[in-house]
């Protein structure tokens, strides 16, 4: 007992910088408040209250990110880095999460919303018919989304591998769950959830093994400690290389890069469409943020070793994504392969490690940051459009059903064409400026062959986007084809935000590009 008392006296209370951690604390706080609301709020008011709380929380967290800008340091005893890339990506995730949450809350397109009335009820059972008739919906999705967003905010900011691992799991677990709750095609959705969970757990085991080996190498899990060990060339090089490789495998899985992409099409197809959009945008941002931090801060001294590997993976990912997308007949699967191809393009920018811009910014980092913002907003918008094209069975996702869509709803066809043009990288869309940024970073980083392959792959990718555009505008619509539903303001706003950002960053990219440039330095 004596020892306990003396220890209590010795124990130094850790300093927690609440101001620096505010974005994450606000989001987690809102999530916990949401859980309490589920318990005490009468059911009829829950949906609106949860939605309002979530959006208010996201805005407040974004405001606190803005207030932190330029104020870089490490927080929570060095386990969280508050620096340019972290704040930039946190801001991006929070802004993308707003249209993401709005699209998820849509209840007009499909009466009762995109989620099953209760996760536990069997599709078509009397119990479920009762729930549908009573218009009961599952509002637990809002706190779950907020927990996922909290994890995503922490993931690119974590400054040691333990925090990074915890953040990885915090962001993944709610997503595994949300994937399985679709109202329509429930079996597909549950299958997606199971596959995502098993493969996600599998990949996080690789991540952990990598962490264990790096701990054995450096004797610490702090990224700065690992960087020191790398630069002093102390310790065992095999442990370092194997550990880095396994750690990167875990991160590349989350990013959806080939050859670790096999979950992407299945999960994107099976998950409820607004969740797919949210996941495709925000998870990618968070995972690339973590990958950047590990590769640049942790093992930046090893750039000679990992650059060729990322090179190869970038080429493979672009190839797999672009070529397999050509053969798809389902629009959600096609967008999934397109997201794989985009992961490849982003990896291209990552290779430009020694590319330094005019003001000393790291072009490799800033181009990746910029690309993530543009891709995220276009993706959320595109998936929100997919939710609107429906027939009696739910969303009409087969490509043949999209034939002649322009005759049924010219507005939706034009908006979707705009998003596809952004994915293809057509000038005047954000996709063009983003591709230009990553390719010029890679060019400046002397990865010229990679840039040429990247340009060829963008041409291949453009082909399948244009196939869809041609199908929508120049094919005759099927007589019993799907109709386009007029959504509530929620989805309309989500699509409008996506389209507006895609246009703005295509026409006036300078401001955000400069911001990304300013935000390209890591603290260590």
């Amino acid at each position, binding site marked *: 007992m004596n020892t306990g008392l003396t220890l209590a006296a010795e124990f130094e209370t850790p300093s927690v910088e609440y101001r620096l951690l505010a974005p994450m604390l606000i989001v987690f706080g809102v999530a916990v408040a949401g859980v309490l609301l589920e318990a005490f709020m009468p059911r009829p008011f829950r949906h609106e209250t949860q939605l309002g709380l979530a959006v208010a929380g996201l805005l407040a967290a974004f405001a606190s990110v803005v207030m932190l800008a330029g104020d870089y340091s490490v927080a929570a005893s060095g386990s969280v880095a508050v620096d340019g890339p972290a704040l930039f990506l946190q801001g991006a995730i929070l802004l993308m999460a707003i249209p993401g949450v709005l699209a998820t809350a849509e209840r007009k397109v499909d009466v009762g919303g995109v989620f099953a009335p209760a996760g536990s009820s069997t*599709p078509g059972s009397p119990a479920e018919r009762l729930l549908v008739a009573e218009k009961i919906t599952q509002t637990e999705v809002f706190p779950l989304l907020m927990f996922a967003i909290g994890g995503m905010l922490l993931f690119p900011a974590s400054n040691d591998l333990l925090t990074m*691992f915890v953040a990885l799991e915090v962001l993944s677990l709610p997503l595994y769950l949300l994937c399985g709750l679709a109202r329509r095609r429930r079996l597909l959705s*549950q299958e997606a*959830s199971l596959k995502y969970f098993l493969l996600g*757990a599998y990949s996080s*085991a690789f991540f952990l093994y990598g962490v264990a080996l790096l*701990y054995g190498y450096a004797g610490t899990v702090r990224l700065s400690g690992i960087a020191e060990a790398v630069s002093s060339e102390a310790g065992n090089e095999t442990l370092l290389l194997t550990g880095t490789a396994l750690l990167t495998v875990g991160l590349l899985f989350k990013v959806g890069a080939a050859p670790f992409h096999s979950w992407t099409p*299945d999960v994107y197809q099976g998950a409820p469409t607004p969740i797919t959009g949210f996941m495709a945008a925000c998870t990618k941002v968070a995972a690339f943020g973590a990958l950047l931090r590990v590769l640049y801060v942790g093992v930046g001294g090893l750039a000679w070793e990992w650059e060729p590997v990322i090179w190869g993976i970038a080429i493979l990912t672009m190839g797999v994504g672009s070529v397999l997308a050509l053969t798809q007949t389902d629009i959600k699967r096609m967008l999934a392969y397109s997201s794989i191809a985009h992961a490849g393009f982003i990896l291209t920018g990552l290779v430009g490690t020694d590319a330094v811009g005019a003001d000393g910014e790291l072009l490799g980092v800033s181009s990746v940051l910029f690309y993530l913002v543009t891709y995220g907003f276009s993706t959320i918008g595109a998936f929100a459009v997919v939710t609107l094209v429906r027939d009696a069975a739910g969303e009409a996702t087969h490509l043949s059903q999209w034939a002649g869509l322009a005759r049924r709803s010219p507005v939706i066809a034009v908006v979707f064409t705009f998003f596809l043009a952004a994915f293809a990288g057509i000038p005047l869309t954000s996709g063009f400026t983003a591709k230009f940024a990553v390719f010029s970073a890679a060019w400046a980083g002397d990865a010229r062959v990679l840039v040429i392959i990247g340009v060829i792959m963008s041409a291949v990718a453009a082909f399948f986007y244009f196939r869809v555009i041609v199908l929508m505008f120049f094919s005759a619509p099927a007589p019993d084809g799907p109709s386009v539903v007029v959504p509530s303001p929620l989805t309309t706003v989500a699509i409008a935000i996506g389209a507006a950002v895609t246009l703005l960053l295509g026409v006036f990219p300078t401001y955000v590009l400069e911001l990304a440039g300013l935000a390209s330095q890591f603290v260590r």
Partner: protein
Amino acid sequence: MPLLMPVLLAGLLFCIGVYGVLARRNAILVLMSVELMLNAVNINLVAFDVWLRDELLAGQVFTLFVITIAAAEVGLGLAIVLLVFRNRATSSLDEMTELREDAA
């Protein structure tokens, strides 16, 4: 005792886990193989902790986190498996073929 021994043991168990994930067809057994992989990681962490004479015990703390998180993960994972089982009366991954590449 050489450090190699526990690390080799961990490597062996990890490989068995990897193989189990790829070879077993029952979702529950796949999940058990993942647990085996996590246990292998824990052996590594503890062995390195002891080897490094880490006064901070960082490896042991990490292991503690891994155990906690694995428990949460298993709870959710088994709930998903049960959900799928209730609707399909199977937990075999070979029968989860509704999401796949089109033959056409």
